[in-house]
């Protein structure tokens, strides 16, 4: 009996030796364990799956190059803060070294606090609140944050439509919308943008006749809508029914209006929005990304897919510059990446020469316009 036990023990030991061997064998090229958290099911699943597919595509490309290998582990948080933290803990148990996520803002704020505590470097593709990066020196954003969106929108309008009368309709019961509104107004004033009408709505507003009439009577030719796509669709409908056709100008919350079930996309014709990515852009990088994405997932990638893709590449580039070994500890990688990100400049699908200050990204915004039911880069 003793012999059997010792034999088994020896076998187990030998097996573990081999296991260790295979592990160290692949570590020669180096494998970085990358975690991803986003809503893969539930109401916000569109965003999470797009970002995840983008990230997966980037990982595939990087691994095909040889050199540093990346292992991606994607976890679902259902756009729920508590589930997001659970997903984060699962990833930490798995041995995650760098995090891409969380995709949506509220879960990301919760996860950012954990990342700060554990010294895990995180780069979120799309959580846009300033609360994500505030006080968390190791949490970075790849997307514009909300105040910057307002500022960038004002700058864009001031530059492209210098003579325009501008109307604004925003949701003053929502932090996202009023955050963008505040910085937009401040910047618009500084740039002498002529704001002729400002109206508000709440989450429950379904009648926009007064707001639209106000903008129409004020003769506004640009209507800025820092709101989500659902109320925006009501505004477009109302404006259409009273024959009011200004240039509607949205922010990233407008992304999604074309996929609303039953929505007449002709109403959104000519709607502009500030988004860092347009799938029809002419540059080679976007073209090859769109082709590869379509081949892999059968759909045209949106902004979130490009964000996820860029996140992986930004981390890959930064990590290579640190000169660290892939076996380095999570906190060591974190400190090295903070140093890299605060000094480096990264060019990806969602912008050229991005730089970061205090975790917030600085990049040139690009506008897209809806033409024939698809996003087209505006000039």
């Amino acid at each position, binding site marked *: 009996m003793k012999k059997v036990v010792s034999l088994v023990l020896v076998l187990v030991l030998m097996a573990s030796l081999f296991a260790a061997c295979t592990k160290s064998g692949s570590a020669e090229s180096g494998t970085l364990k990358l975690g991803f958290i986003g809503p893969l099911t539930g109401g916000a699943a569109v965003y999470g799956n797009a970002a995840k597919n983008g990230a997966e595509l980037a990982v595939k490309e990087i691994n095909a190059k040889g050199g540093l290998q990346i292992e991606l582990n994607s976890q679902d948080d259902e756009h729920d803060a508590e589930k997001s933290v659970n997903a984060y803990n699962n990833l930490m148990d798995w041995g995650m070294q760098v995090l891409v996520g969380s995709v949506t803002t509220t879960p990301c704020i919760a996860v950012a606090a954990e990342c700060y505590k554990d010294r895990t470097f995180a780069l979120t593709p799309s959580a846009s609140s300033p609360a994500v990066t505030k006080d968390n020196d190791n949490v970075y954003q790849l997307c514009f944050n909300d105040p910057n969106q307002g500022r960038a929108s004002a700058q864009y309008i001031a530059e492209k439509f210098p003579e325009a009368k501008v109307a604004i309709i925003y949701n003053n019961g929502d932090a996202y919308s009023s955050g963008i509104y505040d910085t937009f107004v401040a910047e618009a004033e500084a740039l002498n943008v002529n704001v002729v009408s400002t109206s508000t*709505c709440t989450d429950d507003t379904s*009648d926009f006749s007064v707001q639209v*009439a106000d903008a129409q009577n004020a003769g506004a030719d640009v209507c800025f809508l820092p709101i989500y796509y*659902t109320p925006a*669709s009501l505004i477009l409908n109302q404006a259409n029914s009273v024959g009011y056709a200004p240039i509607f100008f949205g922010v990233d919350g407008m992304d999604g209006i074309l996929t609303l*079930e039953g929505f007449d996309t002709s109403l959104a014709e000519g709607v502009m929005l500030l988004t860092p990515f347009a799938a029809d852009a002419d540059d080679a990088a976007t073209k090859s990304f769109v082709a590869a994405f379509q081949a892999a997932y059968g759909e045209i990638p949106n902004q979130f897919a490009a964000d996820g893709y860029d996140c992986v590449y930004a981390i890959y580039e930064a990590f290579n510059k640190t000169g660290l070994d892939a076996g380095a500890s999570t906190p060591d990688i974190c400190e090295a990446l903070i140093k890299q990100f605060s000094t480096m400049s990264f060019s990806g699908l969602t912008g050229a020469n991005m730089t970061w200050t205090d975790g917030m990204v600085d990049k040139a915004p690009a506008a897209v316009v809806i033409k024939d039911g698809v996003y087209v880069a505006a000039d």
Partner: protein
Amino acid sequence: MAFLSNFINGLSLGSIYAIIALGYTMVYGIAKMLNFAHGDVIMVGAYVSFVSIYSLGTPPILALLISMCVCTILGVVIERLAYRPLRSAASLAVLITAIGVSYLLQNVALLIWTSNTKVFPSIVSIGSLRIGSLTVTGETIVSIITCIVIMIGLTTFTAKTKTGKAMRAVSENRQAAELMGISVNRTISVTFAIGSALAAVAGVLYCSMYPVLVPTTGSIPGIKAFTAAVLGGIGSIPGTLVGGLLLGIIEIFGRAYISQDLSDAIVFAVLIIILLVKPNGLLGKKVTEKV
């Protein structure tokens, strides 16, 4: 011109409130209960016609009829299963049951149609009317006309037909009506059927005007319409018309001329003032409690 356009917008919103409020008023007048699930019947009506227009490809008018039938059956079933067993229970129990039914309908809708927003296709095919700078949309015209037709129809129905007279009798004195050979249960079922069919009409009109459909679509117009019913005098059909139109106009004018943020607060402040002056609503009858 802006004044006139706001006035017309208020009228059209108000006429939808009035149609919804009819459901509250009739049920209250006859069954003496507040059917808080009424707002959600509106939502079901809108979903049913959305599905029949989109998935079955029926013409809008047929879709409206289908959703009226579905809502009628739904209303009668709700009354039979949830309210009738509680006919002699305390009114608080019935009220809580109604709130429960409301949540049930919302969550079932969430299961069937998910929380993804649907954009409702307008069933109104007539275009907008343009007089100078004034634009009156087809939906506005249709909802005002529908409201007037329903009001006239319902007033005639309760005044002239046998069932209508039975409804008035039950409303006046349930025991006496029963002694006269009127089936109270049947009368209440008919009331629910009519109220729910009207809810379907209101739902389709409301969503044609504001084409966003989610499982909670019915709750806000439901509460506003309930307010309209109380404002006009709950239990009175002409009162509902007055209350609904007034509420719609106050809401739009409040938003246009006083404050966009406070428009709902203004609506409810007006309600409080009117109830302080006339506790039974504008056209409500004063009921003396008999000892």
